[in-house]
């Protein structure tokens, strides 16, 4: 040693922390508005917990009001959280908001980070008002200067102060407000997003659990008030283990016990749009109270598609004890121990439990084995099933939808007969010019013209119903782009969709390209509705419905007139009773009232909201002694909303080999494309089965897939066209000149390829991913 420190130091004092460091730490722990909300709400919960401890109660429950006023480009966004808990004296406010890094949660069992609510100042101005034992205080942390400012210090609380916080006179309470300036982009969330996502945030899932909740969080916004609750997914208990982390048992006793429960859902659970804070699958890792993360404990399990079915919790007081122990050592200037060398959680509260902490390995060892076993079992049991994983499946479904659209032109003019029709310069025509439409029915109408008749720089047109008849027809197509007619090569057409709503004769539907300039008109008679053919006197429109979680859907129900509904029935009699609703999975909104809408039927609408992912939820309604039932599946947002949205095509990669061909269309299910995963060319890119065919995530495989699907679609298109509309290929064959025939054919293939190639490649290989990859190999000099 070169320098030796002997004797007593002259001065010994705490090191000053530069404001810069505080700012950096603050910014890191408040990467989005969500972190601020979590801090504010968990602080309220802590406060209610402390109150219960004083009262020596084991459980606690309190109210919390969340007021949100979204701003945006010009205005600030303001959020405020109000509670009726302990309230804070000026001293407490100063301790909590005037210091950085001090342990704050007191006797509550949450964390020790000593940061939190005040970090929100990195997003905007944080103001706090509080009443404790009749005294009111008000402070603020300025966003720009981060200075702790005092506005009221222990003044006698007035009625106006109580009103500001939202508590009755004489009671305690606190309100914290965050004001985010318009310039602070990315922090202005939509109210609907808050309503949807707050309960899903892992850190709030226990506090807001629909059965075990400790606070009732009411979100108040401009248009709506909602109580936010977390509903866990439905699933079967797969495994349950209780064990001790022996290494820590001696020191922490019963607190070293771990309880692990793993459930499996029948449906793949939501990944929170890729944001792990809101994912539905995963194991919640819970200390004494706080939820520190939600994951499958290992990043390789997190990316396994099979893992998206599993959820549960791992609960151990050891996490909280180790945190406190580390904190105590720090406060007493003791060095950290080998068993607890650093904080077990990420104090910035971004990453959850720290994998390099020795206790984490022990906590996770058994649960990880269980999860791994489940994933591998699922992977092996999928022996004869498809090769594609969830991600690839999602992309294949998107492709199937897009390809169906690209085939539309083969039949879209099918209803119109334009043979012998001539359209001159400046002429537009509906074909046919007079049409009929029944109430409740939809129909496509076609306006034809020539390309040279379009207004300059405008390739779109729109329709309007003549004045006075607006209620008789609904227009389902807004501005539409023209398409070239296949039937007559020199014509183009605009295709609009309309629906009849009220009977009326001679309604004019006018086509415009620009406002005020009618291009052509269609005369349409809307005719009275036709009789409905009932299977049952009271019946839902569909036997099964699919609803997205957190979305509302109107279910249409038909009742036979006069058997079930008559015009003499009272309002009360016309309202159906609803039974059998599993309120954990579904919520019905409003009443289901019937009114006579057609010659032999009445219609009622039942509004249903999907709450938690679940299948086959039965709903029964009763009207005038008759009953009808339907089944509802609550699905993920990234799954198909409804059968109507489903593509007519279905693409899948199967562990099959079809000789030389890389794909086959299934003759028994003609729109189902089976890609041969066992074809030598594909197998080379896909990788091993036991690893879940990892190659499917690579860009080179996606590129190959794009080429295969394009080829398959051309084959489908050309074989269909040659069979049902051979005129498309007239001119290709020149019997006297085989060379030209082959050339004509090859040109045609290229032409058809251009319809699919670009779109398919862009869906499979997103520009951003491709550009990143290109950048990696670019040899640009700095």
């Amino acid at each position, binding site marked *: 040693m070169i320098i030796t420190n002997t004797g007593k130091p002259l001065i010994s004092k705490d090191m000053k922390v530069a404001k810069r460091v505080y700012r950096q730490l603050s910014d890191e722990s408040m990467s989005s508005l969500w972190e601020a909300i979590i801090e504010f709400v968990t602080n309220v919960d802590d406060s209610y917990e402390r109150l219960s401890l004083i009262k020596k109660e084991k459980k606690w429950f309190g109210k919390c009001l969340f007021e949100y006023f979204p701003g945006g480009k010009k205005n600030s966004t303001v959020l405020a959280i109000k509670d009726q808990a302990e309230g804070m004296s000026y001293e407490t406010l100063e301790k909590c908001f005037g210091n950085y890094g001090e342990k704050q949660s007191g006797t509550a069992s949450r964390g020790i980070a000593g940061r939190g609510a005040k970090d929100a100042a990195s997003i905007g101005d944080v103001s706090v008002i509080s009443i404790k034992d009749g005294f009111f205080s008000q402070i603020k942390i300025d966003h720009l200067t981060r200075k702790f400012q005092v506005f009221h210090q222990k003044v006698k609380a007035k009625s106006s102060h109580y009103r500001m916080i939202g508590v009755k006179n004489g009671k305690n309470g606190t309100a914290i407000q965050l004001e985010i300036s318009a310039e602070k982009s990315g922090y202005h969330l939509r109210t609907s997003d808050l309503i949807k996502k707050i309960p899903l945030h892992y850190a709030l899932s226990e506090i807001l659990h629909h059965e075990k909740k400790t606070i009732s969080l009411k979100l108040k916004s401009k248009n709506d008030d909602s109580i936010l609750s977390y509903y866990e997914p439905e699933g079967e208990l797969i495994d349950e283990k209780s064990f001790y982390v022996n290494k820590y048992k001696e020191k922490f006793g019963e607190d070293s016990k771990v309880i692990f429960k793993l459930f499996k859902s029948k449906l793949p659970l939501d990944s929170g749009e890729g944001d792990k804070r809101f994912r539905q699958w995963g194991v919640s890792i819970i200390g004494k109270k706080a939820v520190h993360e939600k994951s499958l404990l290992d990043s390789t399990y997190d990316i396994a598609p099979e893992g998206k079915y599993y959820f549960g919790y791992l609960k151990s007081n050891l996490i909280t004890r180790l945190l406190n122990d580390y904190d105590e050592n720090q406060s007493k200037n003791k060095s950290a121990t080998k068993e607890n060398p650093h904080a077990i959680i990420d104090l910035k509260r971004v990453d959850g439990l720290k994998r390099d902490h020795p206790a984490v390995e022990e906590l996770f060892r058994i649960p990880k084995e269980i999860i791994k076993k489940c994933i591998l079992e699922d992977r092996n049991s999928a022996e004869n099933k498809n090769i594609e994983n969830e991600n690839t499946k999602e992309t294949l479904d998107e492709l199937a939808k897009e390809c169906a659209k690209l085939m539309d032109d083969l*039949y879209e003019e099918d209803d119109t007969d334009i043979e012998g029709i001539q359209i001159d310069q400046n002429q537009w025509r509906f074909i046919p010019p007079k049409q009929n439409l029944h109430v409740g029915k939809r129909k496509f109408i076609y306006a034809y013209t020539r390309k040279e008749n379009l207004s300059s720089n405008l390739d779109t047109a729109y329709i309007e119903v003549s004045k006075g008849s607006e209620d008789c027809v609904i227009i389902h197509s807004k501005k539409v782009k023209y398409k070239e007619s296949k039937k007559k090569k020199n014509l183009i057409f605009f295709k609009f969709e309309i629906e009849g709503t009220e009977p009326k004769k001679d309604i004019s539907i006018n086509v415009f390209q620009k406002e005020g300039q009618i291009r052509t008109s269609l005369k349409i008679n809307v005719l009275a509705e036709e009789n409905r053919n009932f299977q049952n006197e009271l019946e839902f429109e569909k036997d099964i419905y699919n609803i997205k979680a957190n979305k509302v859907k109107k279910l249409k129900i038909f009742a036979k007139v006069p058997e079930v509904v008559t015009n003499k029935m009272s309002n009360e009699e016309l309202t159906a009773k609803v039974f059998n609703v599993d309120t954990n999975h579904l919520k019905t909104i409003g009443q289901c009232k019937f009114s006579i809408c057609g010659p032999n039927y009445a219609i009622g609408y039942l509004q249903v909201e999907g709450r938690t992912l679940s299948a086959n939820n039965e709903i029964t309604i009763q009207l005038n002694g008759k009953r009808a039932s339907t089944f509802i599946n609550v699905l993920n947002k990234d799954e198909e909303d409804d059968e109507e949205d489903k593509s007519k095509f279905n693409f899948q990669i199967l562990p099959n080999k*079809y000789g030389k*061909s890389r794909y086959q*269309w299934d003759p028994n299910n003609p729109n189902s494309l089976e890609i041969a995963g066992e074809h030598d060319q594909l197998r080379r890119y896909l990788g091993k089965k036991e690893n879940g065919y990892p190659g499917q995530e690579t860009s080179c495989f996606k590129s190959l897939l794009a080429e295969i699907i394009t080829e398959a679609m051309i084959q489908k298109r050309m074989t269909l066209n040659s069979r*049902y*509309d051979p005129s498309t290929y007239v001119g290709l064959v020149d019997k006297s000149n085989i060379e030209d025939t082959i050339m004509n054919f090859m040109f045609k293939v290229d032409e058809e390829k251009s319809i699919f190639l670009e779109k398919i490649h862009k869906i499979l290989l997103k520009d951003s991913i491709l550009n990143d990859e290109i950048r990696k190999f670019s040899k640009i000099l700095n």
Partner: protein
Amino acid sequence: MMKKMVSNLKDKKFTKLSKKEIVLISLYQSGGNKKRVHTEEVSHRAFQINRDLFSWKLKKFKNFPDITQAYKTLTHLSEEKKVFGTKNEDPNKDGWILTDQGLSFCKNDLAEFIDIKKNKSNPQQHEKSYLISIKQSKFYKEWNSNNEKKLNERTIYDVADILKVLTSNTPRLIEKFYETKTFANELNENVHDFLKYIEEKHNDLFNEERRKEALNKSKKLLKKVL
């Protein structure tokens, strides 16, 4: 050439034939044993065989073939399951083809009438070569040697492969199967038996209903199939 053929038909033996027999002969001779034949073509052939039965009725119009006579007879034959088909304004939808039953009737009961020179039903060289290629396929050999294990592994895609049809076109696959089976019936009993085995194995695809459906080539079907 046509004159010669027509004169052949004036043979007295044709005069004793019923309308149904004439229509069956006409369909066979126009190639109805292999593919669909347009109603007008059948009608014209029947008119050539017997003008009295298949012309307009007024004397001054005796030289005009009457399509309704042939059409009515085809409809009756369809009810007897001797022919498949429909008459339609759209040439893509119109057409008739002999069923197995119709074909055996032609070959057994009308044998002396159907065989004429320049008969469209006569096997062509390429058709003979095609059957030889089927006989040389591994699939056929497995069937011939009764190799059950291998046969169990064969799928509809192997059938499409030997028929040289793309699976993107199911109706054509069905159509081509029956075309092949029909001329195999005349040319090669073994191949015909092999195709009967395939028909049985894939009876969800190769059956009368699907065969009828495949006859319809209306453009409106595009919307339905897509």
